């Protein structure tokens, strides 16, 4: 399954002007192979424009974009697009084609033999957790969440090394969104695809991104892993954008196992303390401790006692620095 290998994507001083408007202004960053880069920022900051320059739905005014070191601006755009997955918020599923035909779009354009297309469609359907009976349905017969899943499957069908996603989960309700996000993360890890993902939801960016690029008025303000973004926002804009609860958000990126646990804490004093596992996030640990009105948590790896985690230690991690 993991025969797909992600490609590296690099923006080099990419600028897009529309007359006097500068939509994207000297954007430079690199996405390592197989990682998710999330572009986030307020409306109109140039996220969609940046994304659509990768598959040349928009041509940059200047600069270059490299996929595995190759400039996308050289060569045939149609051929390029067949190697890049593309998912948009409104899905853009073809209303006159069945789910099966929609998913088979790019393999068909690439001229795969019928049996190979059929096998791939079946495989993808399993991966996105839809029933085979769905294959004969038309998009109008699917729920919003199912449509988004089909949109993702369609984009992945020909095993592209790079996938572009523009607010793919924005149109569904929060519960479905959370499920789709989790499924997507699993799929992405499984297939090893490099993803550029656009959202204006900072929580989604923190959850999905290996790297997060914060944009403002066409410029890159900060490009960092989410933990670092929360701990060290580059400026006031980023600090405000990630929110005053960024300390709390950061806790959801850290696990109990990685925290400062006291192994010598007297176990007999932990009666009534909630049991925490090393893989739990600090946010969940905090919630458990607050719920049982306990100053401490008992960290257990199965039957093995690892030590105690105190509220004070979590509190210390909450106090992330404010920008200079």
């Amino acid at each position, binding site marked *: 399954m993991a025969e797909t290998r992600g490609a590296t994507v690099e923006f080099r001083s990419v600028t897009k002007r529309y007359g006097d408007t500068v939509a994207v202004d000297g954007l430079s960053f690199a996405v390592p192979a197989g990682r998710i880069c999330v572009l986030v920022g307020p409306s109109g900051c140039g996220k969609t424009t940046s994304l659509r320059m990768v598959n040349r739905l928009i041509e940059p005014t200047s600069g270059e974009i490299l996929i595995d070191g190759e400039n996308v601006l050289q060569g045939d755009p149609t051929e390029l697009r067949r190697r890049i997955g*593309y998912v948009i918020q409104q899905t853009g599923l073809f209303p006159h*084609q069945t789910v099966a035909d929609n998913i088979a779009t790019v393999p068909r354009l690439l001229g795969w033999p019928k049996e190979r297309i059929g096998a791939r469609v079946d495989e993808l359907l399993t991966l996105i957790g839809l029933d085979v009976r769905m294959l004969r349905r038309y998009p109008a017969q699917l729920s919003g969440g199912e449509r988004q899943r089909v949109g993702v499957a369609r984009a992945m069908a020909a095993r592209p090394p790079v996938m572009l996603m523009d607010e793919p989960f924005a149109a569904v309700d929060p519960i479905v969104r959370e499920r789709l996000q989790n499924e997507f993360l699993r799929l992405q890890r499984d297939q090893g695809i490099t993803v550029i993902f656009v959202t204006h939801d900072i929580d989604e960016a923190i959850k999905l991104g290996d790297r997060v690029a914060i944009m403002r008025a066409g410029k890159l303000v900060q490009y960092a892993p989410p933990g670092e973004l929360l701990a060290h926002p580059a400026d006031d804009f980023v600090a405000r954008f990630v929110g005053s609860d960024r300390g709390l958000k950061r806790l959801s990126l850290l696990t109990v196992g990685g925290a400062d646990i006291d192994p010598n804490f007297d176990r007999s004093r932990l009666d009534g303390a909630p049991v925490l596992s090393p893989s739990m996030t600090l946010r969940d640990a905090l919630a458990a401790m607050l719920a049982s009105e306990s100053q401490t948590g008992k960290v257990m790896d199965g039957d093995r006692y690892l030590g105690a985690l105190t509220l004070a230690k979590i509190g210390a991690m909450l106090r992330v620095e404010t920008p200079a």
Partner: protein
Amino acid sequence: MTPGEPLVRWDWVANHTGEIGLRIGEHLELTIIAVVLGLAIAFALAFAGLRLPHLYPPITAFAGILYTIPSLALFAFLVPYTGLSLLTAEIGLVSYTLLILVRNIVSGIRSVPSEVRDAALGMGYTPRAILWRIELPLALGVIFAGIRVATITTIGLVTVTALIGQGGLGYLILLGIQQFFSTPLIVGATLSVALAVAADGALVLVQRSLMPWTRVR
């Protein structure tokens, strides 16, 4: 009309089934030729208007002018050039289909959601493939609405082509008027309406079979 005579003399109808059948056949033939030719020309004009948007207003203006010329006047104008011929009849009939067909083809294609077009382009469809495999199938509903109106209008207009000697059910109507004899007049007019209803029903069936995705839910 002779007083006391019934509106429809069924004995006349019974004795003229061959003639009536012939006129129905002629009527259908004139209609089908007109709609098929009209569609071909309308597609060419519509594609031109879509490719070069500044051409679209003059194209519809031209088709609109054709549409407003009274049919008798158009035939009278054409006869000195093309005679009392099939060509004269079809030039007139085709002219009247163009406005509705061109407008519906263009608006059908323009009504395709932009995100569908965007997704197709983004996945590596060529612009040509987008037109044939995405836009046209999705525009079929609106295009068929145009074909239905064009067909019904043409069936009505074909009754006039009898005046230039091209037969059809108009021939029976003309016969009735000339001989002060109501039977062929009523038969001709009724069959013309029936033909329009039947043709419309047939087109609906064709449309449904071509657009299976509109039958769900």
